[in-house]
């Protein structure tokens, strides 16, 4: 091999490098603009807000306090409450929603189901309603004198109206119910579209081999949907950790601070309490760190263990 390259005239190699350089330069120019823009509008603010998170004080009178803000986090009852709330929503709502979404998707993928597109539309419809509008409706549904209580009273299931939004636990249940209603259809669409890409032949072959519907679901559907399940669970995790609108509109973080989320707490620190931009930045970094960690765990847990055996 080496003696072949030796025979090549050096001039040609230089021209080759030059054309390659020119070609690369065009590519670099193309990505230069986004790199600069991302640098200015994303990277620089991130670095700057990290610097901000090491300072404390009110308004613009900030002093450098090192890691004090980060130790303050662990003593902050509201932050811990918010963190617990986010994790509660995450642990209950995300699996619930993904399972429901999968179930709907599989049911609605059946070729012999009548009014299929009508049902699909019904389940997807919540995903296109305005966040504020649906949250307001949920607030009224679960009001002390709301329709949920009216129905339960009417059916004789309860004696006195339940204070859904007044009790810390029930208020969280309400938020989870609302989130599930709003986002299940959205995730279902992803599953449905990838279900339609699964070759019918695989199911037929499994049937011939004697697999029942449950086996087909767990041995064929779930493994083939794995990338999309991973995608939706990461998106839902991020969405839940950044939850803001629903909580603000349904309970405003109440009763007391029982349903407050981390993003709402950041907002309160910035705009409602005496503005402490440094500490608010610290909480933002805590959120970022958690999203990163959870995403890495999710990638790791659902990684493709068969990959090394795959032929190129």
């Amino acid at each position, binding site marked *: 091999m080496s003696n072949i390259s030796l025979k090549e005239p050096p001039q040609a190699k230089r021209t080759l490098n030059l054309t390659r350089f*020119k070609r690369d*330069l*065009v590519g670099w*120019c*193309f990505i*230069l*603009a986004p790199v*600069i*823009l991302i640098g200015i509008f994303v990277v620089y603010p991130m670095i700057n807000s990290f610097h901000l998170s090491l300072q404390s004080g*009110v*308004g*613009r*009178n900030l002093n450098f306090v090192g890691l004090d803000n980060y130790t*303050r986090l662990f*003593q*902050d*009852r*509201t932050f811990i409450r918010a963190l617990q709330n986010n994790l509660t929503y995450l642990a209950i709502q995300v699996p619930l929603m993904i399972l429901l979404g999968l179930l709907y998707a599989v049911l609605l993928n059946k070729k012999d189901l009548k009014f299929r597109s009508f049902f699909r539309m019904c389940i997807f419809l919540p995903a296109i309603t305005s966040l504020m509008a649906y949250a307001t409706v949920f*607030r*009224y549904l679960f*009001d*002390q*004198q*709301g329709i949920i209580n009216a129905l339960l009273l009417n059916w004789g299931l309860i004696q006195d109206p339940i*204070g859904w*939004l*007044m*009790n*810390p636990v029930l*208020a969280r249940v309400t938020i989870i119910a609302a989130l599930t209603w709003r986002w299940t259809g959205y995730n279902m669409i992803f599953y449905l579209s990838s279900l339609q890409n699964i070759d019918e032949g695989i199911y037929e072959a499994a049937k011939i081999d004697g697999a029942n519907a449950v086996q087909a679901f767990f041995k064929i559907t779930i493994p083939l949907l794995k990338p999309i399940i991973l995608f939706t669970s990461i998106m839902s995790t991020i969405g839940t950790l950044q939850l803001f609108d629903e909580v603000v509109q349904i*309970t*405003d*973080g*109440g*009763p*007391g*601070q*029982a349903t407050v989320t981390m993003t709402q707490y950041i907002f*309160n620190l*910035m*705009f*409602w*309490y*005496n*503005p402490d*931009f440094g500490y608010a930045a610290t909480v933002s970094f805590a959120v970022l760190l958690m999203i990163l960690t959870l995403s890495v765990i999710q990638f790791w847990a659902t990684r493709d263990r068969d990959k090394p055996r795959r032929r190129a």
Partner: protein
Amino acid sequence: MKKLVSVIGASILMLTLLFGLAGCGSDNDSGAEQIVIWAWDPAFNIAALELAAEFFNAENPDVEIIIEEVAFDSIVQQLNIAFAAGTMTGLPNIALVEQYQSQVFLQNFSEHFYPIGNRVNTNNFAGYTVPIHSHNGVMYGVPFDTGAIGMFVRHDILAQAGFSVEDVYMIDWWEALEISEAVFEATGVRMFSQNLAATGGYARMNMTASGTWYTGADGQTVNINNSPSIRRAVEVLKEFVDRDLVMHHGDANTMHANWHTSQVWAVPGAVWLTPSVMLDDGLSGQWTLVPYPRLPDVQGATNFGNMGGSAWYILDVPGYEIAAEFLSFTFGNNLEFHEALLTEIGALSVFTPLANSPVLSEPHPFFGGQPIFQQFSIWANNIPQFNVGLHTYFGNSLISTAIVEILEEGRDIDDALNAAQHHADTQLN
């Protein structure tokens, strides 16, 4: 090569365009005779502004007054962002600021406001409002509406239980509890409607009536567990809830529904609730206004407190001189204007010369001829001074959390208030 040049050219063009856009903010140095004002309620403070513009334009026809409706939350956010960024571009000449936010702005960013105190007489405003809107002894905001509190009661329901309006006049909360029990027994009607998930308003009314606040005299140190007024207010609320004498509401709509469907016989609250109480014409003549119940056995407790109220702040942007002239001509010094505010819009201001105005003593037909605004105005002058300080919203969340813990999770009162105090101590130092 041509391609390369065009690509580089295009990239540069794109970048310059992007940055060019960011660079060319409006440079409003023309000194045009116009001022921009932000307020949030078309039925109330914006209506008041329109009236003020009318008054001002009658004398100064060449000044254009632009009134913009900006949501209450949005005003706070936009001012905070602008001050933190150190840029005043895009801010109005005058913004309406709620009293709980005023010290946060003044103690952090007073250099961005124009001290109107030099242009208007501070004696023109109810005594308790002046320190709220002042910093280092200078008044920055022109106080607008009063948040004087009272209690609207349904004398027809009281009569069914054998009580008269005199029985609920100038009472304390334990007396109110006794009457409430009797009324509930006789009629099945509870006393008042309260959002038990957010009880900051209830706490503030009782604290101001006792001349105290979440913070001590310095406006900085949060005092929750050693405050007799907070403790008593919590005890009172717990007693009312335990005896099932309170209706819970989730928001203003259900609150109004509770009032207007005769689920409650009292509306303890501020003067600005008057239009809401009047929403149901069918109940005209059934409501009477009495003073707010005072906290029992608390030193300095009165029947006169405050909830809410706002002031006009001039921002240090070009045109502040015209803005100052506008405010001092209307809200700052003009009795005729304040009379018109009351008669045309129903807005009761904290303007003290109004006290002697005949407009104030006019009987109010909805309240059976009772001159309610005069009463609110007299009570406003009796409100003990209190220092709102910096931590009102933080205090609200502390109190609401403690009350939820006490009512819903069965936590001991001392325990919950100590936890709130501990939270404040660790977070504010």
